Structure formats: structure tokens, C-alpha cells
């Protein structure tokens, strides 16, 4: 189970997986968005503004799914104390926040012609905004704990506590009367016509692959950063120690 928790093995795997995920995700998401923007017919009520769906929905999924991954990594870090889990959580935070912001921005642009307002404080919109702030808080906390050398547990606990917001976002349109429409995709049922559904699913898959590629890229960068730091520290402490005994070999 812990085979890939070893940073060296992880790096070997990530080296070929990163470009694979990144490029396939980029091609698929660009293709799916082009399909949605240029090829599908307009919606009967929303007209052309339905096309923003093909960015909004994948971004919303990754904003929420990103926090799910961050919370799982945080739990793994607390339980097994494995540094790679902490690296994963930190790597997820920034892309997760970006997709969360994309979701809010595209939703706002869609809301203006559809609802007649840029922003309303309904359950779905408010809870999604809270998720954006949670990402910001997590990034600040994890950077502070990485730089100041304080406990890694603080951001991990924050990541776990923040996870409660994810089911709240998901259920907000069911529990409360809201301006945002209820879920269109429920277990085995789709209220989205197949004409829209296929490019949407392609966009969700493409964006997810791209997200995976970005996270791996950031994990590699964070590990490299730690190796450089460890090497510099070692060199500063003792000039006799041969250079090259970095974190990957040591951990």
C-alpha cells in the first residue's frame, strides 16, 4: 500500500505521469470547450449563455473535489505522518482555489443574463464563496507552517475541518430554497439533454486530467524545493558531508 509513498518511487512514477495527464487533459478540455462553444445548439430558454456551462461545471467539480483530495491527504498526513501526503495537500490547494474562483466568476457571468443579477446571497453561492476563503486560509496556513517550521498538524487539521463545507455546498440547493437550480445530474438521471451532456462529461474528464497533471507538477516542484533546502542546510552545517545526499535519498 505504501509503495508510492516513498518520494523516490513517487518521483519516478510522476516523471512520466505528469506530461501524460497534463497534455491529454489540455487537449481534451480544449476540445470539449470548443465543442460546447461552437457546435452545440443554444438552449431553449438560456440561449447562447448555456455555453458557459462547459467551464462552470468542471470548475465547480474540481473546486469541491480538490478540497476532498486535500482533506484525504490531510487525514493521511495526521495518521501515517507521511510527508508526501502533506506535499500533496499543499499542491492541491492552489489549483483548487483557482478552479473555485473560475466557478464563481463564470457563475456570476451566467447569472446576469439568466437570473438578472450578478450575485445573490443564496445558499449555494454563499457556501461556494466560503470554500474560496477556506482555500485562501489553507494556503496561508500551510505556507506559514512550511516557512516558520511550525507544526504540520495545524494546516492538516484545518483541511479536515474545512471538509464539512463540501457536503454543505452539494446539498445547499436541496436543503434550502435557493436561486441556484437543484442538481441536474442525480443518481442515474440526467435533466440535461444528451446534446449538452456529452461535451459536458468530456469537459469534466479533461479538466480533471489537467488538474491531476497540475497537482503532480506542483508536488514535484515542492519536493525539489525541499531537497534544495535540505542540501543547503547540510552544506551550511558541515562542509565535509558530500553534496547530493538530498531528501529523496534520505527519506
Amino acid at each position: 500500500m505504501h509503495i508510492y509513498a516513498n518520494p523516490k518511487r513517487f518521483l519516478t512514477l510522476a516523471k512520466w505521469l505528469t506530461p501524460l495527464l497534463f497534455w491529454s487533459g489540455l487537449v481534451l478540455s480544449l476540445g470539449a470547450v470548443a465543442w460546447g462553444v461552437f457546435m452545440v445548439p443554444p438552449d431553449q430558454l438560456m440561449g447562447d449563455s448555456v455555453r458557459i456551462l462547459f467551464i462552470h461545471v468542471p470548475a465547480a467539480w474540481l473546486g469541491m473535489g480538490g478540497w476532498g483530495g486535500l482533506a484525504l491527504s490531510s487525514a493521511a498526513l495526521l495518521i501515517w505522518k507521511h510527508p508526501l501526503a502533506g506535499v500533496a495537500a499543499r499542491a492541491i490547494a492552489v489549483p483548487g482555489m483557482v478552479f473555485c474562483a473560475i466557478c464563481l466568476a463564470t457563475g456570476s457571468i451566467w447569472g446576469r443574463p439568466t437570473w438578472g443579477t450578478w450575485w445573490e446571497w443564496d445558499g449555494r453561492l454563499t457556501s461556494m464563496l466560503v470554500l474560496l476563503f477556506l482555500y485562501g486560509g489553507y494556503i496561508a496556513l500551510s505556507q506559514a507552517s512550511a516557512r516558520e517550521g511550525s507544526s504540520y498538524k495545524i494546516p492538516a487539521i484545518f483541511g479536515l475541518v474545512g471538509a464539512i463545507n463540501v457536503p454543505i455546498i452539494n446539498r445547499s440547493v436541496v436543503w434550502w430554497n435557493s436561486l441556484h437550480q437543484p442538481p441536474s445530474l442525480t443518481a442515474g438521471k440526467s435533466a440535461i439533454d444528451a446534446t449538452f451532456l456529452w461535451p459536458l462529461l468530456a469537459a469534466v474528464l479533461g479538466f480533471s486530467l489537467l488538474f491531476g497533471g497540475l497537482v503532480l507538477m506542483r508536488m514535484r516542484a515542492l519536493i525539489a524545493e525541499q531537497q534544495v533546502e535540505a542540501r543547503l542546510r547540510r552544506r551550511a552545517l558541515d562542509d565535509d558531508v558530500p553534496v547530493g545526499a538530498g531528501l529523496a535519498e534520505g527519506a
Partner: protein
Amino acid sequence: MKAKHQRMTLVVLALIAIIGAGLIATWALRNQANYFYLPEQMAAEPPAVGQAVRLGGMVQQGSIETQADGVTVNFVVTGNENSTVPVTYSGILPDLFVEGSGVVAEGHLQADGTFLATNLLAKHDENYVPRELEGMEGHKDNSDYIETVAGNP
């Protein structure tokens, strides 16, 4: 018990406590966090005359009447049950404001029982249907789509 298992128990217990706290908080919020009142909710607990509230529901078929001045419209909002609320609004209507679709009106209840709206928002439902295919042969029957409800009381 290994330290690892102890930590796992602790994390699981903490998660259960957090989820429990979250559920209790949202349960307590369930009436306060509603974005709007449905007509039946307004009938059951009428807000004070003049108090700023939102009314949401479906625009009743055939109920939209434009007044002689051209900017004032009267229509009737229905909920999931039989109760209805008549609404008066003057101003620009959102594009999606049509009979049989969802609407959220901001305003207040008047003494005669009608709702004076100061702002109208159109509510989109969860169905996405392409324009060209609507009503065409071979197209998914409308009954396949989720029947839209005005809200979740």
C-alpha cells in the same frame, strides 16, 4: 494499540464530531437560510406588512397581465401546493420571466394581501434542452425531464 491506530481512531472520531456539528448547524439553519418563501410558507407564517422579504415560486400559466402604463405587470405565484400569492411589479422584466417558469420577487406584502415587488429575478430550472430539438421527432420526451418544483419546504 499502535500509535498509528491511536491517531487513526482520533482522526475518525474528530471527523464524526465535525460532521455531527456541521449537520446540527445546518439543521438549525434550515429555516433561516432559505433564500425565499414559497406561497404556502407565506400563507402559514405571513410576514408583517411592509417587511422586506423574498417570495419565490412558479409564475401561474395565463396570469401575467400588463397594465395600461406598459411597465406594471400583475401575475400570480404558485408553490407546490394550492396557495397562491398575487404580485405587482413595475420595471424591466428579466429575459427568462415567462409563464410556468420559476421566479423570485423581492419586496413586501401589502395590507390587501398582494405582494409589491421591487425587484424580480428569474429562476432557471435544472433542465437543459436545446432550442432546435424542442418538440422534434426522436427527441427525448419532455416527461423524461425532472418535474420542476418551486422549492423545498
